[in-house]
């Protein structure tokens, strides 16, 4: 089943076309990595799909709901983890989870269960009573991602989830993200090619708002005659349009 289908989705900022008539399909349950250099249009695409930015043209269907007309319905089954850490700084880890769960209308029993699940999968139990502002960058990022799972979304958008993390913290997060595979549809944007290689089921490559490639890793290697995602990516964004 198709989870997301964009139809000529477009966003312009003055003279710049940030997303250029994007046609893309993302399937239910897959982990889709959207790659591109800075300014490629990845974050703008995610912003439009999550209702943070209004498109200038086209539409997208998220589980059949239009982002132009049914964003409120869409909001009930999506969530996002931003590039930047997005937590309530003066609340404890426990209070952050509770706050986000209550805001989204979860009942007390569910909140209790969700907390336990999050503590277990993210290892946050040991810092549960610490204020978020007093945690290290790695722990804050973990909490930020954990919050996006509180509502058990059908689609999770992870925008540069490991940006600025050290290699150990990044690998730990990979493990957590891998654990989400099959449970929900995950759309991941990243600058780290090895991250896309390790985690994704399919890869999309954007440049200047256009989708240059979409397919599985093996197709990417075959098209570019390369043996890893990083070299293949460089070949695609540097070597012109390659159709999947």
């Amino acid at each position, binding site marked *: 089943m198709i989870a997301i289908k964009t139809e000529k989705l477009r966003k312009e900022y003055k003279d710049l076309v940030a997303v250029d008539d994007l046609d893309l399909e993302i399937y239910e349950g897959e982990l889709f990595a959207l790659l591109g250099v800075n300014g490629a249009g990845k974050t703008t695409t995610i912003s439009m799909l999550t209702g*943070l930015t*209004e498109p200038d043209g086209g539409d997208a269907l998220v589980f059949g709901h239009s982002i132009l007309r049914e964003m409120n319905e869409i*909001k009930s089954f999506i969530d996002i983890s931003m590039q930047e*850490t997005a937590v309530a700084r003066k609340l404890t880890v426990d209070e952050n989870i509770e706050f986000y769960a209550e*805001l989204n209308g979860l009942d007390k029993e569910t909140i209790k269960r969700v907390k336990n699940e999050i503590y277990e999968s993210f290892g946050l139990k040991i810092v549960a009573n610490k204020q978020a502002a007093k945690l290290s960058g790695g722990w804050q990022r973990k909490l930020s991602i954990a919050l996006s799972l509180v509502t058990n979304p059908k689609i999770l958008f992870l925008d540069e989830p490991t940006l600025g993390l050290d290699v150990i913290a990044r690998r730990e997060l990979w493990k957590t993200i891998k654990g989400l595979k099959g449970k929900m549809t995950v759309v991941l944007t990243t600058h780290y090619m090895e991250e896309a290689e390790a985690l994704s089921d399919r890869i999309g490559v954007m440049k200047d708002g256009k989708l240059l490639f979409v397919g599985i890793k093996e197709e990417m290697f075959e098209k570019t005659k390369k043996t890893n995602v990083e070299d293949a990516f460089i070949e695609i964004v540097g070597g012109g349009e390659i159709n999947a």
Partner: protein
Amino acid sequence: MRDFFRRTGVLTKRNLKEIARDPLSLIFMIALPLIMEVMFYYIFHDLTEQFAINVLAPGIVVFSQSFLTLFTGLLISVDRSTSFLKRLYVSKARSHEFIFGYLFALLPISVLQSVLFFVVGGLIDSSFWSFKMILGIAGGVMSSLLFIGLGILFGSLCNEKSIGGVSSIIITGQSVLSGMWFPTEGMSEGFLTVMKIMPFKNATMLVSNLVNGFENVLPDVIFPLIIVAAYTFVAFAAAIAVFKRKMKSK
């Protein structure tokens, strides 16, 4: 409607915790005005009527409220800069629920300010005790709406680096244009006119006349109330418009 109350309540609780756990906000909103009230009374009350407790206490109440602008603005600008607000925008919460969440979190602090500075006034000079304190607290709530509205507006417009500078305009305005620190007799007509049309002196007059009693309700209470309410309305209308625009970038 049920969702509105639930989400607004959750946002209010979170905002109140954020402010209450910031020692700087408590120092500036509570401790500093308290020290000023006690210190200025004991140093100056024999020298000038300006620092008699019935003049000083209401002045301190409104002066302390000007810091509500700073700390409301700071909370919102930090929420924006850390993408915390963006995350919440993806939830079903609406812009007016966010604004009520900030407003309702700050209102108890403004009530605490009024109660504390009036009670301390009564302890310093027992002749200040009066049931009219309740009216003064009600007036304080009215004037605090203005400063909270300005805080929401500035917090939606400014980043966390510029919010201090912009808010200090309001704090300075309240200090200079309220007439609380110096007598206004003998000032130039132009300066007095500016004071009359700005909300600062009117907010101070409103609280002062309510807590001390008034002779004529129209010039002493209604006119200052109308001016403060008009500025409050404009501040909130602008805050809602800016906040909504920031929620959904075009």
